[in-house]
């Protein structure tokens, strides 16, 4: 059961039976999957859609090997989101890439079994062998809920077992039932009698389930009020918002200050690696490639890993705790006014650290149109890569003086830049709602608020590992390729012998800089800025070092700031800030949008609208500043 090597006798030549876990959201299905498969799981995507595909293998106590696929949670086979479509297609054996399961493990929450049992009733019609797993039986028993497992099996007509995903030995009954079913030999799938149910059929299923529950489940004399008592605070119009704000603040603090030491460590590790390469290799193109493209490029992405892990730690904890649905409830009205779903709140919040995890976490939004809108506006949130650019320009051009006695002018400008990003995100989603989804009214906000549950460290750790792997894999492929491309642009062709200018001034980046200068002149950008924007595409903060290179400044940012303040007018500096609020200056984000939105179309749309916004904003800022005599 724990060692894959012991598969010997059971594995034979017969095909490995394939089990599919099916269940409603919040039924503890993923925890059960983790308990059954341990760390032997592969997390990926179904081809063409951004639906997470989780497959694992396990050895039963009798030594039989089984493959288990964890299907996305669903209330019914009437698929309403890409996730649910995957579940429906796999269960019905219609999925192109995923083989039809030999046995369905239908998971129901023992504490509130209605939705799970309803799903079981529907799945019974599919005609595949199935076992109903009454999960979280320990919590149900603890609360005094009694379930007549044998009676339930008799009434439904399929094997029923009780299980606890989170306790050692909590799956013994399930393993025994599995071995019994496998020993007997799984029946070939019968006739599929499932058809999309109408309202009358749903009412009938509902009655049937109510009858089943009345016959087999005894409610406790004193119902559990813990969730209700917590909700009295967390959903309170005042206290609830205060807690949400506090949580947001804690998350920000953790992401920015908590990650900083580790990020510094990673940064200096990659610097050290670069220095090491500098000693080992002769100066030249190869060294530049190793140092600036491979090491600095990969390092520039990996450095965000601590922030992403902390962020996802918060997200996973809050999700497992059952709080995410509450946050969506509290924020739905505000988000809804701008055409966003309440669930978009967390992805957008995450985007303040980095748009990439923000866009990745938009998967929690069921409806495709809400998800796409969220992905579209996520890059407008001020990510941490903009901070070096902002602080450089602000400290060089904005005097440190007090406004109205209390506010620091530099702090105010910084706040203004953040506020501009948020306002733009809300504005763009509002316009997107009117423009793209005019004919389709907003999908409803309807979701179950699950009972609060203590998150389990193991499940959080497994989830975190999967995110880290996914991010690093992306950093190692798409993002790396982009970094190399940008290195080529900033390095080649090589400067001629006896060149007087910095090497970058002879590169394709400089050529592009000169080439787009006329386009950017109306917004006050000189060719040096235009050129710095090219390597700045690798990651926003790279523009800072590119500016340092082109103005041939060695040393700290203070020196660079001083140099910039002599080369640029205030109008240009403000225009540059406005540019960075909106501009699509990050190929990694664009690559992730392409992947998550499922098409290059959305990537180009994001690029286009952000470019237009940036240009318009910079144009206005520059010309107003010039008119004010700051040119």
């Amino acid at each position, binding site marked *: 059961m724990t060692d894959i090597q012991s598969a010997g006798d059971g594995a034979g030549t017969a095909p490995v039976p394939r089990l599919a876990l099916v269940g409603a959201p919040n039924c503890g299905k993923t925890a059960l999957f983790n308990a059954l498969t341990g760390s032997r799981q592969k997390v990926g995507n179904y081809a063409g859609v951004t639906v997470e595909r989780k497959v694992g293998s396990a050895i039963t106590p009798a030594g039989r090997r089984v493959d288990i696929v964890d299907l996305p949670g669903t209330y019914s086979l009437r698929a309403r989101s890409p996730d649910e479509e995957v579940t429906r297609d796999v269960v019905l054996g219609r999925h192109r890439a995923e083989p039809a399961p030999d046995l369905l493990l239908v998971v129901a929450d023992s504490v509130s079994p209605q939705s799970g049992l309803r799903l079981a009733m529907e799945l019974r019609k599919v005609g595949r062998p199935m076992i109903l797993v009454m999960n979280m039986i320990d919590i149900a028993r603890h609360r005094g809920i009694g379930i007549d497992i044998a009676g339930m099996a008799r009434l439904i007509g399929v094997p029923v077992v009780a299980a606890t995903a989170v306790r050692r030995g909590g799956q013994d009954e399930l393993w025994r039932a599995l071995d019994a079913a496998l020993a007997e030999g799984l029946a070939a799938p019968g006739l599929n009698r499932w058809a999309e149910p109408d*309202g009358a059929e749903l*009412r009938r299923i509902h009655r049937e389930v109510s009858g089943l529950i009345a016959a087999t489940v005894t409610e406790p004399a004193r119902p559990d009020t813990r969730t209700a008592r917590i909700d009295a605070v967390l959903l309170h*119009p005042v206290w609830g918002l205060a807690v949400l704000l506090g949580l947001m603040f804690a998350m920000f603090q953790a992401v920015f200050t908590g990650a900083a030491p580790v990020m510094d460590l990673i940064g200096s590790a990659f610097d050290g690696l670069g220095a090491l390469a500098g000693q080992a290799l002769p100066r030249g193109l190869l060294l530049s490639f190793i140092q600036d493209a491979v090491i600095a490029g990969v390092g520039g992405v990996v450095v965000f890993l601590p922030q992403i892990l902390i962020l996802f730690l918060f997200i996973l904890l809050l999700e497992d705790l059952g709080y995410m649905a509450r946050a969506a409830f509290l924020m739905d009205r505000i988000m809804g006014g701008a055409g966003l779903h309440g669930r978009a709140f967390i992805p957008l919040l995450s985007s303040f650290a980095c748009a990439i995890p923000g866009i990745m976490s938009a998967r929690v939004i069921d409806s495709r149109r809400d998800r796409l809108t969220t992905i579209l506006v996520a890059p407008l949130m001020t990510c941490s890569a903009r901070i070096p650019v902002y602080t450089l320009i602000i400290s060089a051009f904005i005097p440190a003086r007090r406004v109205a006695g209390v506010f620091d002018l530099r702090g105010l400008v910084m706040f203004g830049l953040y506020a501009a990003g948020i306002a733009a995100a809300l504005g763009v989603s509002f316009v997107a709602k009117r423009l793209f989804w005019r004919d389709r009214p907003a999908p*409803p906000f*309807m979701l179950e608020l699950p009972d609060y549950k203590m998150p389990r460290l193991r499940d959080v750790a497994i989830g975190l590992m999967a995110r880290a792997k996914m991010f690093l894999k992306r950093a190692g492929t798409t993002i790396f390729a982009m970094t190399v491309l940008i290195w080529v642009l900033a390095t080649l062709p090589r400067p001629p012998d006896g060149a007087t200018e910095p090497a970058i001034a002879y590169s394709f980046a400089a050529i592009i800089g000169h080439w787009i200068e006329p386009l950017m002149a109306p917004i006050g950008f000189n060719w040096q800025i235009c050129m710095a924007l090219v390597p700045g595409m690798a990651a926003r903060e790279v523009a800072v070092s590119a500016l340092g290179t082109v103005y041939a400044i060695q040393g700290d940012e203070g020196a660079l700031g001083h140099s910039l303040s002599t080369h640029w007018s205030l109008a240009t500096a403000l225009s540059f800030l406005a540019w960075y609020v909106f501009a699509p200056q990050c190929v990694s984000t664009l690559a992730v949008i392409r992947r998550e939105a499922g098409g290059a179309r959305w990537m180009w749309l994001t690029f286009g609208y952000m470019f237009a916004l940036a240009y318009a904003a910079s144009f206005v800022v520059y010309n107003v500043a010039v008119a004010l005599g700051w040119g």
Partner: protein
Amino acid sequence: MCLGQAGRDFQGVVRAIAVDDAFCAMPPAEMERRLIELGFVEGAHVRLLHEGPFGRDPIAVRVNGATVALRRREAMAIHVIETR
């Protein structure tokens, strides 16, 4: 009355699910099915537990042993009789 008009601590029984086209963001039959799937069937006991902090929307309703959040706009389709 409609559940969409109810205030906090309202308790009642669902009388009918009647989706009005004007209020609905999707085909009425689909809306009806979704509400049934959340447990809003004729005869179900409902209790309005919480209201959202802005404009008292959305609402959190106890129904069929679960707590469900939905917007008032959608809750207009749920016709209820007060039981207190």
